[in-house]
């Protein structure tokens, strides 16, 4: 294929700044949304450590509880919670963009898809909290 650019006079090529994601609010929220992946991984790590502690008797449990109460740990976990929450909210609100459901030829509005998602989220969260707190 002929590359038409070859026959044009010289052109000026721009490069993107390393800090492009600070240029616009929507870019920043995008990068924050992607950064939530770090804290999703972190939460899994916490879960694994906790499973280990629970299965390894009182001393392991005590060490785990002390670790979790450390101010630095609490600070990290507050940030992690905010990021995980942000991930959940953006995930549910973007789901209708990727999933198109049509009823009688009409596209179902976004809220009819994300609404049940949010409702399920609340129910599941309450259910898990109930199972854990019941004991």
């Amino acid at each position, binding site marked *: 294929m002929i590359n038409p650019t070859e026959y044009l006079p010289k052109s000026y090529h721009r490069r993107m700044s390393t800090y492009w994601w600070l240029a616009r609010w929507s870019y920043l929220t995008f990068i924050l949304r992607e950064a939530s992946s770090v804290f999703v991984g972190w939460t899994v790590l916490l879960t694994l450590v906790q499973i280990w502690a629970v*299965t390894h008797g009182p001393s392991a449990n005590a060490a785990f509880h002390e670790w979790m109460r450390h101010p630095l740990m609490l600070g990290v976990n507050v940030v992690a919670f905010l990021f995980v929450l942000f991930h*959940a909210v953006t995930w549910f609100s973007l789901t209708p963009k990727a999933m198109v459901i049509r009823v009688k030829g009409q596209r179902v509005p976004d809220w009819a898809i994300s609404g049940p998602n949010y409702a399920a989220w609340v129910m599941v969260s309450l259910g898990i909290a109930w199972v854990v*707190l019941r004991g």
Partner: protein
Amino acid sequence: MSKRSNEPFLWLLFSAGGSVSAMLMPVHLFLFALAFPLGWLDPPSDETLLVLIRPPLVRVYLFVFCFLSLFHAAHRFRFTLYDGLQIKHLNELINVLCYGGAAVGTVAAAYLLCQVP
């Protein structure tokens, strides 16, 4: 089909993991990392937790939670490195670190959950 690669598979894992972590992770993190350590809620005893995670179904639940969330995070983090830091030329290394890390975490989860007495 040759050039279609394994991206669809990784994306399916990413999507499944995204839904699982969005649904389950906030409440997990809130209870065990904030509410219990800060004393907002009375934590269940360690013995109760052990009893709670013993049934096979709960172990499967925890395994799926860890496995899918890890692959979700790996996929997203890989692209964040590509684009945020503009280091796409380290492609292979990033792939190995991200998905390899997720695989190691998944194996660790399986091992730990098998160890539950």
